[in-house]
C-alpha cells in the first residue's frame, strides 16, 4: 500500500526484499494485488466510468448476470434502472475507500498523538487522556453515529468525523501502552542523558518503535471502518444517493431481493473481499514488521514453523 516515490539503489534492494517477503506469504500476496486493483479502481474508476455507471437503460433493468448478449459491462447484471453493476461497483470504490481512509488516517493521527502525550508526559494529561478514551469506549458507537448523522447532514465529511471519533481510543490505548514500556528502555535513557529534547526523544526514538504496531492496527481498522460505513449507509443514514458506496448499493438492492439477488450480492462480495484482503495483509504486516518473527518470511516460506 505504501508508495515509494524516489527509488535510490539502497531503496531498490529494500523494495525487493519487501516483495520477496510478500511473495513468501501467498495469501497476503494475492490480497496485496487485490487491494492494488481496488485502489486503482478508486483512483481512476469514476473518471473513466462515471458516464457509463449513471446511464440508465430500461432494457437492462435487473438484467441477470453472466449474460454477455447485452455487452460486457452487464456481465454482473444491471440494477433496477438498468445501470451496469460492474461499472457502479468500480465507481463506488472511490467513496467507500476514501471515507474509510479518511476516518483511519484522522483517528490514527489524533489517537496516536494523544497516546504519545498520555504515555510520555507524567503530568495531569497522563491521567485525563486515558479517561477520555474510556468515555468514548463506553459509548455505543453505532448509536452515537445515528444521533450525530441524524442531526447533522449525513455527508461524507460528517461520516468520517463520526467514525474517526469512535476509533480514536484504539490508537490511543495502544500507543500509550507501548510508550509506557519503550520510555523505560536504555536507548531512550541514553538519549535523555545526552541532552535530547522531549520532542526529539518522542519523534526520533519512541515513535519509530511504536509505528509498526500502529500500521498493523490501522490496516485491520480500515476493514472495521469500511464495515461500519457500509452498515450506516445500509441503514440509510450514511452516504445518500446519488452518491454511491458499496454499503448503499446493498441497501438499494434489498427491495429486489426475491427477484434479482445479484443487486445486493456483488457489492457485498466487494466489501467482503476487500476486508478479507485487509485482514490477510494485516496478518502479514504483523510478522513482517516484527524483527523477531521476520525470519519466517525471509526464509522464503519454505518452512512455516
Amino acid at each position, binding site marked *: 500500500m505504501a508508495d515509494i516515490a524516489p527509488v535510490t539503489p539502497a531503496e531498490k534492494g529494500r523494495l525487493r526484499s519487501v516483495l520477496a517477503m510478500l511473495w513468501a506469504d501467498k495469501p497476503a500476496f494475492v490480497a496485496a494485488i487485490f487491494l492494488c486493483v481496488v485502489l486503482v479502481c478508486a483512483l481512476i474508476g469514476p473518471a473513466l466510468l462515471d458516464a457509463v455507471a449513471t446511464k440508465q437503460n430500461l432494457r437492462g433493468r435487473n438484467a441477470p448476470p453472466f449474460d454477455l448478449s447485452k455487452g460486457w459491462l452487464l456481465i454482473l447484471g444491471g440494477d433496477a434502472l438498468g445501470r451496469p453493476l460492474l461499472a457502479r461497483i468500480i465507481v463506488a470504490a472511490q467513496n467507500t475507500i476514501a471515507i474509510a481512509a479518511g476516518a483511519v488516517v484522522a483517528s490514527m493521527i489524533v489517537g496516536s498523538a494523544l497516546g504519545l502525550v498520555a504515555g510520555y508526559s507524567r503530568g495531569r494529561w497522563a491521567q485525563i487522556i486515558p479517561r477520555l478514551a474510556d468515555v468514548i469506549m463506553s459509548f*455505543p458507537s453505532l448509536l452515537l453515529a*445515528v444521533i450525530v448523522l441524524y442531526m447533522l447532514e449525513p455527508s461524507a465529511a460528517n461520516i468520517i468525523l463520526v467514525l474517526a471519533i469512535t476509533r480514536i481510543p484504539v490508537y490511543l490505548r495502544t500507543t500509550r501502552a507501548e510508550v509506557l514500556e519503550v520510555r523505560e528502555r536504555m536507548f531512550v535513557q541514553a538519549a535523555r542523558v545526552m541532552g535530547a529534547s522531549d520532542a526529539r526523544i518522542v519523534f526520533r526514538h519512541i515513535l519509530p518503535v511504536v509505528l509498526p504496531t500502529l500500521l498493523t492496527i490501522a490496516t485491520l481498522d480500515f476493514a472495521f471502518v469500511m464495515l461500519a460505513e457500509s452498515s450506516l449507509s445500509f441503514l440509510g443514514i450514511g452516504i445518500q444517493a446519488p452518491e454511491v458506496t458499496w454499503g448503499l448499493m446493498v441497501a438499494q438492492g434489498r427491495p429486489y431481493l*426475491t427477484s434479482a439477488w445479484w443487486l445486493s450480492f456483488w457489492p457485498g462480495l466487494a466489501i467482503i473481499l476487500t476486508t478479507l484482503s485487509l485482514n490477510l495483509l494485516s496478518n502479514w504486516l504483523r510478522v513482517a514488521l516484527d524483527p523477531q518473527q521476520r525470519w519466517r518470511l525471509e526464509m522464503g516460506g519454505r518452512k512455516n514453523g
Partner: protein
Amino acid sequence: MRKFLTRRAVASAVSLLVLIVMVFFLSRLTGDPTQLYLPVDASLEARENFRNLHGLNDPLIVQFGRYVGDLLTLDFGDSIRKSRPALDVVIEAFKWTLTLALITMVLVSFAAIVFGALAAFNVGGVFDRIATFFSLIGASAPDFWIAIVAIVLFSVNLGWLPTSGTGTLWHWILPIAVLFIRPFGLILQVVRGSMITALSSPYVKTARAKGVRPRPVIFVHALRNGMLPVITVIGDQAAGMLNGAVVVESIFGFPGVGKLMIDSILQRDFAVVLAAIMVTAFAIFLMNILIDIAYAVLDPRIRY
C-alpha cells in the same frame, strides 16, 4: 474487593453521566417531536398543548433539571410514541436482546474455543488452515450482507425458515446464525493466537514429556492460561450485542433494544432513547464485573 467494586461503579457512573448529558442535548437538537406526532393541519393550539403536555416548552436546562430530578425517584419519563413508561418499553425490548445475545454468545464462545484450540494444536495443519480461512472470512463479512444472502437462500429459495418477525423457535435460527459469524471469526483467531503461545510454554512441554495425552494438555493445561485474552474479546463482543445488534435486529424485524433505539431516535422519542442507554449501560457494567471475576478465577495471581 469492595474497594474495587466502588471504584468501578464510580468510574462507570461518571461516563454514564457524560453520556446522558450528551444524548439529552444532542437528541433534542434533532428537532421538535410535535411535527412528527400531530397531523400537518393540527391547530397551533393543539401543538401548544402537546408541547406543554410533554414539557417541551421549557428551556432545555429546565427540562434537563426536571429529567434528572425524576431519575432520582427512578422515573424514566414516558414514551411519547407508546404512551407508556419508557422503562417498561425498554425492559420489554431488552429481554429479547438479552436472550438473543446470551444464546449467541454461549454458542460462539464454545465453538470458537474448541475449534481455536484444536487449530493451535497443529499449526499449519489441514484443520488449522481450514479454521483460519473460515474465521478470516467470518471476521470480514458485513452482517447485513450475510443476513440478506441467508434470507434469499433459506427463506425465499428453500423456504425452510421465516424471513422475519418472532413467534416460533424457527424465527430465532437466522438471527442467531447471522450474529454468530463475525464474533466466531474474531474470537477463534484470538483463541488460536493465545493457545499457540500457551502451547509453546515450558510447562506444557513438561506435561507432554511426562506422557500426558494431547487432549488433556490442550483443554486442561494450556487452555486455562490461554483464556485470559480470550475472555477480554468475548466481553467486547458481548457488550456490542447487549447494545443491540441494530442492523441484524432491523433486518429480521426482531423487537430488541437496538431496533428500539433506532426507531426512537428517528421518532424523537427521547425518554426511550435515554432509558435504553441507561439499561444497556447497567447491563454492560454488570457483565464487566463478571468478566473481572472470571479473570480472578482463571488466574489466582489476580486479586482485586
